[in-house]
């Protein structure tokens, strides 16, 4: 049986767990993945997000998340003004395309020195979310647990290198999935762990042969 706080909860800013709370979490996750305060974000909304985002405050929730607010932070209500104060440029684009899920958003995120990243995510209902794509790489990040995203070359041994580094730091892996575009091309490992992975271990992983980059995310 679930915890009593799953049924009387979450604590959130209204009006909709999928269109508001989920949107705030998507924005926050996009900010975490970008790793810095963006200068400009173009958000393309699909499906029900595109049709009902104004009435559900989805726009303000996405911006609030990008500003680092949690889904229960009342500053979400004024997020459009606060985004301007934070010199965050933004646009919302309503896409007529049906891409197979009702609540999808694509973030095109721009930062200092022409840095660019694209992040695609969906709101699953009840405030739950999933990031499904980063810079064109398929992946799945829910933000519910500490998460490592490892970009690597698809070669034998990469997975054992990473799992060994984790086990040597006494970190228990909760789940692991590998995504790749083609055999022997770039691949992405998404690993959730029962505890926080320390920066020394992360740096060690980054320096391993075949590992291109490692990102870490705290639970949202």
């Amino acid at each position, binding site marked *: *049986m*679930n*915890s*009593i*706080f*799953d*049924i*009387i*909860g*979450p*604590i*959130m*800013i*209204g*009006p*909709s*767990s999928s269109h*508001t*709370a989920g949107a705030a979490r998507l924005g926050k996750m996009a900010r975490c993945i970008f790793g810095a305060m963006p200068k400009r974000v173009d958000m393309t909304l699909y499906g*029900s997000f595109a*049709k*009902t985002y*104004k*009435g*559900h*405050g989805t726009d*303000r929730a996405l911006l609030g998340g990008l500003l680092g607010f949690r889904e*229960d932070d*009342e500053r*979400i*209500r004024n997020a459009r003004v606060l985004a301007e104060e934070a010199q965050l440029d933004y646009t919302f684009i309503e896409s007529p395309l049906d891409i197979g899920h009702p609540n999808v958003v694509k973030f095109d995120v721009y930062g200092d020195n022409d840095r660019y990243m694209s992040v695609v995510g969906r709101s699953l*209902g*009840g*405030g739950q979310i999933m990031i499904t794509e980063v810079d064109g790489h398929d992946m799945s990040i829910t933000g519910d647990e500490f998460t490592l995203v490892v970009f690597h070359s698809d070669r034998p041994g990469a997975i054992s290198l990473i799992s060994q580094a984790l086990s040597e730091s006494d970190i228990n892996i909760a789940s692991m999935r590998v995504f790749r575009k083609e055999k022997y091309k770039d691949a992405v490992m998404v690993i959730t762990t029962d505890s926080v992975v320390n920066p020394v271990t992360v740096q060690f992983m980054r320096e391993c042969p075949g590992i291109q980059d490692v990102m870490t995310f705290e639970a949202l």
Partner: protein
Amino acid sequence: MSYTYETIGDILRLAEEHQISFGDVVIRHELEAYDRSEEEIVAEIKRRLAIFESSIQDGLNHIERTQSNMSGGDAATLHAGKPRLMSDIAYKAMTYAIAVNEANAKMFRIVACPTAGSCGVMPGAVQAVAEEYQLDADAMVKGFLASSGVGNVVANRACVAGAVGGCQAEIGTAACMAASAIVEMLGGTPYQVVQAIALGMKNLLGLACDPVAGLVEVPCVKRNGVYAVHAITAAELALAGIESQIPADDVIEAMNNIGRAMPAALRETSDGGLAVTPTGLAIAERVQSL
């Protein structure tokens, strides 16, 4: 000792076996299953009860309309007036429940209970009863515990999402959660708690989810007020010793079966019911061009 429960019947049996209340079973299970102390659980419940109250105040104090202009200010109108037909408790429950859903529609902080669309029923009903009977925080904690056990059973054995089971799954669950909380708070027996659940859910089966313009406003906001009163009715029946001929677990199963038999147009798609009336469609068009 295991307090594991799957059904309302399980909770009733455990309560009677151990001669404890319905809500006591729920907290004993929570202690067994999760790594939290009783003090931590009670503190978290009180934190959520405090948000129930702040949502009521937000709804009463902010009388501006929503962006869609479909809701806002009705709770304040009721609060400034007096009941003509209803008891003070029912009137207050209705007012508070509408206040919470107005707050929700205007992006204030709420606790989903079990969903955001149905977040007013439980705070409205419970706060009204607590104020009128001058019950303390501990009594409200007991009510919270009983109702969360009820919600958990419905979520596990049926559904609480309008997109899956229609409004009966959202408001229906909220109403029988609130009814169970009231009976528990007023010292009813576990058997009476179970009757309140059955009577609450049984009398709103089939309720469709047909929100205008896809927003959580029409019919949601006022419906929370109406079903907070419904929860009080179910609790009143149960406390008077009235029994449901159909047991609570069977009623929950019926709700699930009805929900899944409902056409998609009546399950939160805004393709049926109120949403596609001439006025509903006109509002949707206006909202779309905002």
